[in-house]
Structure formats: C-alpha cells, structure tokens
C-alpha cells in the first residue's frame, strides 16, 4: 500500500515537475544568455494557458491545432517584447531592466484579469477517456499527454541548442559575448531568438498546465518565483540543471505533500534551495558561484 502510494505521488510529482522544468528551461535560457532576471516569465506562462483556453473552449479548435497556433503567437510576442523593450536596454544596469520586466508582468497580469476575469480557465483536450491503470497507479490521459509533450519539447530544445547553427551561436554568446560578436555572430538576432524561444517554452508550459489542471492570472507571480527556485536548484546557467531541478522540485513537493503535510508544500522548494546552496553554492549542475573581485 505504501509503495503504491509512493509511486502515485511520484508520478503526480513528475507531471508537476514537467511544468516546472519547461518553465525554468525558458527562464534559464533568457537569464543565462541575456543576463535578464525576467519577472514577466510567470505572466507569459499564464498567457499561454489563457490563449489555449480561448482557442479550445471559445473558438472550438482541436488541441493539435490550438497548440501550434498559441505557440506561434507566443513566439511573435517574444520577438516584439525583445525588440520593443529589452533590446533598447541591453547595456543598462540590472535594476532598471528587472524593473521593466516587473512592469511588463504587472501589465500582462492585470490586462488578463480585465479580459478574462479571475475565474480559473481550463484547456479542452478532447481526452476525456477513462484514466489508465498501471498496477495500483492511476494516470489520466491528459497527464500522459503533458508528460509526452514536455519530453518532446525538452529534447527539441536540447537538439536545437546542441546541433543547429543557431544553437551553436547561442552557446557562443552564452560563453563570451564579445568574442562571439567579433566572430561575426549577430548578437541582436540571437537575443531576439533566445527571448522568443524562452517565451514560447513558458507558453507551452502554461498550455499543458491548463490541460491538466487550470490556469488563472494569480498563478503568474508564484510561477515566476518557482521557476527562479528551480534554476538556482539546478545551477544558474545550466540548461540540464534547469530540467533536473524542475523534476526534482516537482517530486519533492508531491512527496512532501503526500506524506508529511500540504501546508508547507510551497516552501519545500525554498528549503531545498537553501540546503543545496549551503553544500553546493553553485546548484546541482552549475559552475562555481563565489565572488572573485
């Protein structure tokens, strides 16, 4: 009985972990490459879910058509935000840049509240079939879909970064922006591409959240904060770390909530972060973080 409980909680944690991993992956890309603490990431995450809800519930699009449509919108939005706001502040101090993303987040969240209301929204998946039993463990079809899409997205992102020309340019900018620029890499285009990719990944996580649970604008701020927790956990600047950190946080929260107490569930991540940083200040897979000068 205890073992099957454990497996059930672990599976639930894996689903949540997939959302965390996807969100954190996008945030980590933007953070590592552009050096921007993007507080609007949570709002973009929710926006993806909201748009997918409108597409499937109000416009009646099937999910397979709604996902690419929403992702295309998110990509475009990412390009616009980068060109309109962030590209103009590339050499600015971290404070104004952070504040711009906070302002953007305030705008997005409150505009969504105005347009869609406070009521949580669902993304219609068309997968209302009976849940699947794996021994004693139960999993709904929409959760399998969420895990599957997440895995595909994470692998696609990895392939993009490790095996394409654009990805190689991104890694070069990540390592040494000046040298990359000298080598003829168009930094402006790489930034635009990276931010759009980050926005799209956040949007995809939001769509999947809406498909399994519900989305509403009040989730934006906690989602951004959680994503930051995940990238500290995994190690700042490490993309595999973001994925690993996300899965770990999802598992830890679910097991803690299942076996100990649901009250402190949201604090689990922060406690983990503090514990990990005491022993490994650079996170699980990160480079050393101590200050030199």
């Amino acid at each position, binding site marked *: 009985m205890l073992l099957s409980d454990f497996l059930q909680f672990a599976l639930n944690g894996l689903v949540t972990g997939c959302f965390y991993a996807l969100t954190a992956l996008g945030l980590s890309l933007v*953070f590592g490459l552009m*050096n921007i*603490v993007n507080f609007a990431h949570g709002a973009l995450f929710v926006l993806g879910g909201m748009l997918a809800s409108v597409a499937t519930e109000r416009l009646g699009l099937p999910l397979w058509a709604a996902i690419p449509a929403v992702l295309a919108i998110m990509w475009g939005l990412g390009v616009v935000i980068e060109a309109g*706001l962030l590209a*103009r*502040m590339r050499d*600015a*101090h*971290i*404070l*104004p840049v*952070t*504040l*711009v993303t*906070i*302002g*953007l*987040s*305030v*705008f*997005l*969240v*409150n*505009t969504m509240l*105005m347009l869609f209301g406070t009521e949580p929204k669902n993304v219609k998946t068309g997968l209302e079939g009976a849940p699947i039993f794996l021994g004693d463990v139960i999993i709904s079809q929409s959760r399998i879909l969420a895990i599957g899409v997440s895995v595909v997205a994470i692998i696609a992102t990895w392939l993009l970064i490790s095996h394409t020309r654009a990805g190689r340019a991104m890694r070069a900018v990540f390592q040494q922006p000046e040298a990359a620029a000298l080598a003829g890499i168009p930094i402006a285009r790489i930034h635009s591409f990276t931010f759009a990719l980050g926005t799209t990944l956040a949007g995809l996580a939001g769509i999947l959240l809406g498909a399994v649970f519900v989305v509403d604008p009040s989730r934006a*701020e906690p989602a951004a*904060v959680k994503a*930051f*927790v995940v*990238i*500290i956990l995994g190690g*700042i600047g490490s993309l595999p770390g973001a994925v690993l950190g996300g899965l770990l946080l999802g598992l830890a929260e679910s097991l803690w909530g299942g076996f100990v107490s649901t*009250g*402190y569930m*949201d*604090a689990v991540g*922060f*406690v983990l*972060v*503090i514990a990990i*940083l005491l022993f490994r*200040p650079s996170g699980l897979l990160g480079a050393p*973080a*101590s*200050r030199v*000068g």
Partner: protein
Amino acid sequence: MTENRIVLLLLALAAVLPAFVGDQYVMHLLIMTFFYAMLSTSLNLIVGYVGELSLGHAAFLGLGAYTSAVLSTEAGLPFWLCLPAAGIVAGTAALAVGAITLRLEGHFFVLISLAFAEVLRYVVMNSVELLRGPLGYPNIPAPSLSFGGTVLADFASKAHFYYLGLALLAATLYAAWRFARSSFGLGALAVRENRRLARAVGIDPFRHALVAFVAGGVLAGIAGSFYAHYLTFVGPEVLGFSFTLSALMMVVIGGRGTLLGPLLGAAVVGITLELLRSVNEARLSIFGILLVLAVMFLPDGLVSLRWRRRPEPAEESPTEALDSPLRS
C-alpha cells in the same frame, strides 16, 4: 539649491501641511506616503548605495511589523519599546541573512534574497499556533505619549500619526544621510562603482555591503513597526513580495543612490496610483505601462533630470575616476 536643502524644505513644508489639509483621506494618503518613503529609503541603502538588488526587503519590514504586533498585543509593551525592538529584530535578521548571502555573486544574491523572504512568509502563514498564521494580529494598540501623568498625545486623530510618521521619516533620512557620508557609505559607493578597484585600495566589499544591509534592515523594521501601529493590523502579507516591489519601484523611479530619490519616488508613485483610481479596472494595467516607460526613458530616476548622481565615467580622467567614490 543642494539636494539636502530640498529635502529639508520638503520636510518643513510637510510639517505645516496639516494646517491646510482637513480631509482625513488625504491625511491617510500622506501618512502612507511617509511610510513608503521610509521603506524605500531603507531599501535604497542596499540597492542604491551598495548596488545589490535585494528582493527580500519585505522580510525585514514584516519582521519589524510582527515584532511590534506580538510585543504590544501579547506582552502589552508600549509602542516606544516596540519600535526599537522591531529595529533590533529586523537588523539581527539582516545581519544573519547578509552574512550568508552577500558573499554570493550578484544574480545569486537577487534570487536568494527573494527565497529568504518567501520562506519566512510561508513559515508565518503556516505557524497558526505560534504566530496566528493567516489570521494575523488585529487590534494593535495605538501609541500614546504622556509626561508625568498628563497625556500629551493619544494618537486618536490622524494628525498625531502624521507627525509621528514625519518624525520617523526625518530620522530615517538623517540616518541614511549620515550613512552615506560615513566612511562605510563612501566605501559602499566605491564598491558599487568599481568592485575590483575598491578592493585594490583596501576596501572590503563584503563588510561594507553587510553594514549597509543591516542598516537597511533596521530602518525597514522601524518602518514596519510604524505600519503595524498605524493600521492596527498585521498579517502575513507584510512579508509579501508586493511591498519589496513597491519600494523598489519608488527607489528606481525617484533615483537610486540619492537622498531625495526615494522621497520623490514614494510621492510620485502614490499620486499616480491615486489619479488612476478613476479608471478603476484598467488601473494596474496602465500603471504597468507607466512603470515600463518611466524606467526606459529615465533609468536614473526623476532626480537625474536635475542632479546627475555623478559625472559620466567617460568624461573623467583616470585619476578623477579613482578619486570619485571618495569625493561624493
């Protein structure tokens, strides 16, 4: 006119203002502006002078507010003892947190400071037996000022709180001014401008940052105590990110690293939010856009319209650049 004189003039104007303002709501707004000016001045010590982005400032505000709430409601201590106690508790916490986190590199510090405040909020939310959890502390008594048996001020009227807030704000500004002028303040500025260079001339970045962090914590705790006794209620939301956010906005919009900046920021943000009340639903959406525009077009804040924080580095000769942190 120098910056200090303008600050003094503003405080003097504020001192005579109640003679012309009868409206209780306007008085309330002014008192809250004093509170926010205190809070953003305390944050400015860290964000403006040391140049570290602390996103956990609400933790110190909340610790001060809770200290005051617990001591006055459970132990029955008077406000005049709760206020310094709030400062001490918040300052001690800042010492502990700063000692661990300020060693971390810029971006790590940003995120860990936030994590600290969030953990504290969750702990308070969940400790229902000890700290009343989400219920919070209602009926926090108002201060009272008496001398030899005669009550001088009972704080039943807003005017009393107005002058208490103004006095605390003046004290906070004085403390910030003294800090900025002290060797620690100048050292902190040197660290902000050029960390490696500051180290090379024997300034320990960590120690200077820590002193500023603790000073900011103490002042935030005092602001929290004032908040608790004025609003008579304290709940977990005083530990929330929105207070940090508001203070940060005011610091940046006003002008970081200046005395006048947080003051202007608190006034401008307060007035803007009031003016936007007429558009009700769209209020915060518009506010978000205004925030983005303000920061993009005035990254050094309103103060930069008149006072440059310091000459542009490019215009300085190398020797001047070396001296500049100590010249101020």
